[in-house]
């Protein structure tokens, strides 16, 4: 019970500050009563209530009281510590006290905002304040722990977000490891034909940046590679990457492309080609791939499947083919990590009534992107599945898998704009063809976006406001024969409409990567309800995550168009650059420590630490915490059967005190009852 006896209670001088937060708190909680109540606590020497404690004057109140009244502990009852803990710690420090001799009572988020019952809210507030007072007297001064930042950075994902971030950092003189799962960088942007609303060629603006990445000495480019493990913490991550065997010796390969050309094995390209074009078994996704070395796809390679062929080996002028090549494990240290793992397109097969996969002339948006792309399977000609016929009428269906509670409830943000782009491209490629856009709402926020919409209105696109119910080849009326009939309610006319067309394009929405969940676990961070990576704060920290030193950029955080993605790539890079230039960061001193002289060496705690921060000393037969590795979760503290592990700032004493504090009123009732007997 020694832990319980250390109470320095009597000699502490606590100052309590109850914030009105305008009417946010004072509107529901009787702040005056709460302050008066706090004053009764024997430890409290000053108890005030003030309009806005977070204002500079509010903070000065604290600073002055510390100096003039000789306060030794501070309690602020206001909002969530996640909002202003830092603010008041700093005020406490400016007043001359150690910042950790401060405690916060959350009477706004957990109090005034959570109920309309004023009386109950006030009682709860008193309880929380009292808990804070009882707790703070047991606080001990703590010093933040400096951690040095390794200047190297890991960037996962070689799409436009990852490319931007990599170049920003590399050009600032910092080393970057850029890890890409596919054989080349470029991501979805490399598949796209034109970009809205400016209609400049996607490849033309992307490939130069890809080349820069390939040539920059500060960038170690690891394509056809995946991160296997991530150890450590901000400033000091240890990364293991699996460099998958592409069966091509990079040092020898000259990217001449002979192997690709001569390879007899054609394969439908479901990745870059969106399933609408073919590639070879040894291939580069596209001519401007970076790096230029091909990848040998073992599943489809005749040699790997039948043991015969080896044509690529024979034709390679530099003998760069190596069928025996093995996966390679690379291990390196970085200080920060940027995740730019991008998105998956919604799979339109999930909506059977749209017929994708059954009705040949229903195309997915990515299929169309590839088709209309000059480097695509039809060299940019818009044709039906038969490969020759040009459609005379095209329907473009918005919100496929988006804004739909059966699939994804959110809006995918880019579909309206790219659907407009499609409409334009059809007009451009097939003059005279009829184009119908079926939309729920036309969402075109962004520079020049609404103007683009107006342009399409002028180009004669038929805009039908209504969610498509079904797409069928079952003709019912004359004129529907051998057509795809798009059935929808035209909500502007208020009537059902059957539109016969030759071709349908489904504007599939954006969704989280199928493996986002595993990736988030690998990097020890969280996903949101829809599977996208969680940002630290939706407004104020959009590229930071809950895990220090790990940042996110682009569509892995949520649907985004190219400009937003590029912006986030840059933002993440500058966050990292900031940390690198700081050199060290101060880490919360909330850490566990073992009182070795009292440790019996039972070793219960040894396996509990997820960061392997607990080591066992055979010599002394005691366990020890490696402070730098400890993240302060306190699991070992709770588990230690002899209570010899202390969790700084969350000690048993502090929690027990808070516990008794917040239950003051119940305690009073009970004692009253007892005395009654």
């Amino acid at each position: 019970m020694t832990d319980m006896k250390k109470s320095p209670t009597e000699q502490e001088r606590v100052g309590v500050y109850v914030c009105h937060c305008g009417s946010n708190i004072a509107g529901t909680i009787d702040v005056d009563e709460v302050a008066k109540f706090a004053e009764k606590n024997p430890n409290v020497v000053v108890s005030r209530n003030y309009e806005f404690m977070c204002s500079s004057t509010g903070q000065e109140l604290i600073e002055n009281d510390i100096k003039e009244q000789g306060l030794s502990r501070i309690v602020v009852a206001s909002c969530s510590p996640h909002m202003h803990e830092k603010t008041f710690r700093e005020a406490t420090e400016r007043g001359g006290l150690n910042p950790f001799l401060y405690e916060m009572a959350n009477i706004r988020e957990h109090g005034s905002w959570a109920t309309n019952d004023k009386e109950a809210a006030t009682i709860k507030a008193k309880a929380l304040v009292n808990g804070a007072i009882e707790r703070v007297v047991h606080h001990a001064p703590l010093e933040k722990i400096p951690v040095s930042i390794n200047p190297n950075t890991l960037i996962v994902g070689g799409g436009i977000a990852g490319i931007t971030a990599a170049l920003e950092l590399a050009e600032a003189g910092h080393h970057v490891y850029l890890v890409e799962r596919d054989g080349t960088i470029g991501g979805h942007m490399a598949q796209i034909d034109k970009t809205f609303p400016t209609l400049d060629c996607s490849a033309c603006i992307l490939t130069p940046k890809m080349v820069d990445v390939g040539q920059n000495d500060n960038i170690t480019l690891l394509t056809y590679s995946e991160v296997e493990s991530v150890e450590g913490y901000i400033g000091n991550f240890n990364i293991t990457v699996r460099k998958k065997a592409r069966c091509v010796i990079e040092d020898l390969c000259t990217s001449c492309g002979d192997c690709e050309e001569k390879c007899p094995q054609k394969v439908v390209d479901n990745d870059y080609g969106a399933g609408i074009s073919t590639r070879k078994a040894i291939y580069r996704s596209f001519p401007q791939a970076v790096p230029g070395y091909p990848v040998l796809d073992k599943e489809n390679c005749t040699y790997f499947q039948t043991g015969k062929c080896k044509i690529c080996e024979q034709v390679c002028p530099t003998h760069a083919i190596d069928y025996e090549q093995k996966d390679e494990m690379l291990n390196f240290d970085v200080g920060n990590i940027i995740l730019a793992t991008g998105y998956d397109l919604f799979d339109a097969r999930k909506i059977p009534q749209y017929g994708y996969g059954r009705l040949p002339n229903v195309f997915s948006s990515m299929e169309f992107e590839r088709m209309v792309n000059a480097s695509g399977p039809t060299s940019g000609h818009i044709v039906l599945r038969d490969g020759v016929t040009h459609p005379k009428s095209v329907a473009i269906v918005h919100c496929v898998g988006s804004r739909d509670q059966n699939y994804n409830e959110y809006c995918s943000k880019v579909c309206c704009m790219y659907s407009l782009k499609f409409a334009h491209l059809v007009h451009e490629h097939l003059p005279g063809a009829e184009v119908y856009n079926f939309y729920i709402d036309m969402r075109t926020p962004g520079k020049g976006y609404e103007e683009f919409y107006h342009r399409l209105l002028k180009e004669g696109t038929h805009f039908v406001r209504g969610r498509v119910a079904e797409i069928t080849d079952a003709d019912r009326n004359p004129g529907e024969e051998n057509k795809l009939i798009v059935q929808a309610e035209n909500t502007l006319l208020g009537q059902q409409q059957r539109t016969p067309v030759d071709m349908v394009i489904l504007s599939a929405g954006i969704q989280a990567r199928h493996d986002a969940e595993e990736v988030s676990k690998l990097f020890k961070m969280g996903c949101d309800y829809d599977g996208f990576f969680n940002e630290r704060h939706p407004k104020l920290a959009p590229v930071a995550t809950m895990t220090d030193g790990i940042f996110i950029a682009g569509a892995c955080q949520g649907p985004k168009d190219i400009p937003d993605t590029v912006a986030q790539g840059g933002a993440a890079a500058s966050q990292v650059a900031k940390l690198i230039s700081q050199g060290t960061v101060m880490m919360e001193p909330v850490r566990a420590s073992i009182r070795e002289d009292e440790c019996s060496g039972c070793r219960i705690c040894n396996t509990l630490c997820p960061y392997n921060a607990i080591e066992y000393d055979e010599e002394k037969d005691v366990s020890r915490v490696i402070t730098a590795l400890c993240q302060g979760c306190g699991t070992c503290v709770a588990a230690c059967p002899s209570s010899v592990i202390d969790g700084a700032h969350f000690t048993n004493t502090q929690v027990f005190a808070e516990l008794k504090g917040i239950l003051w009123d119940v305690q009073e009732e009970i004692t009253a009852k007892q005395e009654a007997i």
Partner: protein
Amino acid sequence: MKYGYYPGCSMEKNARSYHTSTMAVAKPLGIEFIEVDDWNCCGATEYIAINKIPAYALVSRNLALAADQNDSENLVAPCSACFLNLKKVDHYLQENTELKEKVDIALDAGGLSYEPGTINVQHLLETLSVDIGLDAIKAQVKKPLYNLRVAPYYGCLVPRPATMGSFDDPEHPTSMDKILEVLGATVIDYPLKAQCCGGHMTQISENTALELIRRLLKNAQDSEADMIATLCPMCQLNLDAYQDAVNAHFGTKFKIPIVYFTQLMGLAFDLPENELGFGKEIVSAKPALAKITEQAPKPKRTRERGKKNVGLPMPIMAEEG
């Protein structure tokens, strides 16, 4: 395997062949159907919309009886309307306590009571495709229905609404397709498979009904179906009995037999003709059935996909779980 069985009015008369064929295929599949004793009408499609409380009470009585005679917690209804009514009532009684209280009073008057959720209402198609399963069915196939082109028609009630948890996709059901496939028949992709047959519109607004029926028949004919397989007496009646009316009204010449999928199962199981009730249909199935061959057809796609050499690849459909 024991199942409670709720035939519903039509199974006794116009859908006799559905009833007998169901009983016939049940035996080899090891299903024992135990008819609910003293069951009453389910109220059909309209009543529930006209007079709610009595309608719910009417259906609840059947559920109560089934639960009371508890030979099995599963209650199978071959008729889509009966199925939907039973399932819907059980579902809403669980959700809506106020409704339940009222219904309880009605049941109590008849000395009955029912705790929603105790009975698991199934349509016959679910029983066969999910519980029994394709392998068991395949095992019974003695005379495959080779070269018989069948349009599977589900109607609008069975897979809907999905909110009550459907055993098949509400927009594009496939469970009957799969059964017909294992029977050896050539199943045609029938886009209107889950659309309405007109129901009682035949009595209320004949033109509406005839148009709906026409669509179904036309689409089946366009895709060269030899026959349409149904799983609902109402659908069968509308498509079969009104074919002449449709032809007269639209000047069409449809002659598409409408049979129950259980009849085809019986045929493939090589069960005695008399139990399967062929011949009771108005548009005779004989000519169509004559097309059945001993030889399996060459595997070819149900719809052509342009000339292979220049055509673009189709998206690969993910295999069904």
